[in-house]
């Protein structure tokens, strides 16, 4: 990576010990106990702090004040999928299984060669240079399991969801790619289904027969899970923590990216962020009081001016 620069290889960061590669995804607790969070100190987890410590900014002490609540990645990865390589953002399985009149698979690509539709897979969406989404994250996630029930009235499920909030001393604001899509589910039992995907015609595999009911029946039977026989589709979000593609330091987020009324953290609540938050009634009240005061002073000054003119006129 960056042959002209540090020329790091993957294993500069992902150091190995007895074939244990350090760095597990979905495990990014704020290194609390140690200034230098070396992998051995932190359960073989790897973090930017392992090399940089928690106070890497020499010139700007204010930036170091952030590292307890804001992950390094949040400021140092202003966008992902930079450098001309697209990333997949959307995958809608519900449109799969459509063929043209001659029964041949439909394949649509955009001008860059990204797959937009395939009869086997459904619709897809791609993007370049994407601004991450942000969430409080203490390093653990909870997962939506195959046996978990989808609550009534919900239009979208989170395949995995972030743990942690402002009050959690281990949690920091972390950047994520959210992979969105539509998944098959069982509307009667209200669970996701596990379809049998790749297989020959006659086995029930989706890519053999293009029949979701059959594919789900086979898959769920194999998994030993109940299946009602019905399949519908539901939207899903999946959080992917972003850690790679650290940008040169000049491109790190500016203060205003977060400290402004509609900045990147506009959707995170439960804490006071200077420049973003205020008490609208206080501001309104205060500016009104100031306006009235100025008006009063203007009036007073005007009267003084008029009366001094009259006085001079009368005296002379």
């Amino acid at each position, binding site marked *: 990576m960056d042959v002209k620069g540090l020329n790091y290889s993957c294993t500069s960061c992902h150091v190995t010990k007895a074939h244990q590669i350090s760095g597990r995804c979905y495990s990014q607790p704020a290194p609390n106990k140690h200034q230098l969070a070396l992998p051995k100190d932190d359960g073989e987890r790897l973090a930017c702090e392992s090399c940089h410590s928690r106070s890497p900014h020499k010139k700007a002490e204010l930036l170091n004040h952030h590292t307890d609540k804001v992950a390094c990645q949040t400021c140092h990865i202003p966008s992902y999928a930079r450098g001309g390589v697209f990333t997949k953002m959307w995958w809608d399985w519900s449109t799969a299984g459509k063929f043209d009149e001659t029964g041949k698979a439909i394949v649509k690509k955009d001008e860059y060669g990204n797959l937009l539709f395939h009869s086997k897979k459904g619709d897809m969406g791609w993007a370049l240079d994407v601004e991450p989404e942000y969430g409080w994250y203490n390093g653990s996630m909870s997962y939506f399991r195959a046996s978990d029930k989808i609550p009534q009235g919900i239009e979208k499920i989170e395949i995995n969801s972030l743990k942690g909030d402002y009050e959690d001393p281990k949690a920091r604001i972390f950047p994520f790619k959210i992979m969105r899509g539509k998944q098959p589910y069982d509307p009667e039992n209200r669970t996701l289904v596990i379809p049998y995907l790749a297989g020959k015609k006659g086995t029930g595999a989706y890519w053999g027969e293009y029949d979701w009911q059959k594919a789900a029946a086979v898959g769920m039977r194999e998994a030993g899970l109940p299946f009602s026989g019905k399949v519908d589709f539901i939207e899903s979000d999946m959080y992917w923590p972003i850690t790679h593609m650290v940008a040169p330091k000049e491109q790190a987020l500016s*203060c205003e990216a977060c400290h*402004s009324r509609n900045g990147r953290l506009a959707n995170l609540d439960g804490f*006071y962020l200077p420049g973003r938050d*205020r008490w609208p009634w*206080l501001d309104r009240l205060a500016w009104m009081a100031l306006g009235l005061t100025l008006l009063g002073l203007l009036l007073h000054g005007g009267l003084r001016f008029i009366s001094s003119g009259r006085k001079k006129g009368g005296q002379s």
Partner: protein
Amino acid sequence: MKVRLNLYTRFERFWHWFQAFLIIFLLVTGFEVHGSCKIFGYANACSWHNLAGMTLLVLTAFAIFWHLTTGQWRHYRPSFENIQKIIAYYLVGIMRGEHHPFHKSEECKLNPLQALSYLFLKVVLMPLQLGSGLLYYYYNDWLNWGWAARLDGVAFLHTAMAFAVLLFLAVHIYMSTTGGTLFSYTQSMITGWEEVDNGIMNEEKSPIR
């Protein structure tokens, strides 16, 4: 009759104008941090606000020392005597060209209304504002102090008091124009000398001291 008095010592004038500059600068940078304006850029606004705040703290420490050692604090002893007269003067008398009911002297250079409002500024507004600012500055150390408070309480107080200081400043600047001429009070705050009506009617002594 009119006399010329040296009311404001050199330190007092230095303190007054340096403080005025710092307070105005703190208001501007503070409201940028608050998100009300964009002037210096957020990073500069933050660090300059901190710097100016610390400077004001040091200046205030000197000023407190000066007030105590020179006995100047006596000018701020509150008194409600004649306060109605003075309010009436500013509301009505000033329009009619009446004389100010209060006569300044070296022993008592602030009229009671002035003394009360400056006292309020000095013992309520500024301590709250400097105190909350200092706490805000050390926000990252609160946990080390074993204090699990949240930022919003301190930020609220600091913002509300900032508005109060802004209001004070508006009225204060206006009041500075109510002297003999529009800028005569400002001038005496620069030179230290003020031409004062001492309230003595018969002119026997020389007006120049």
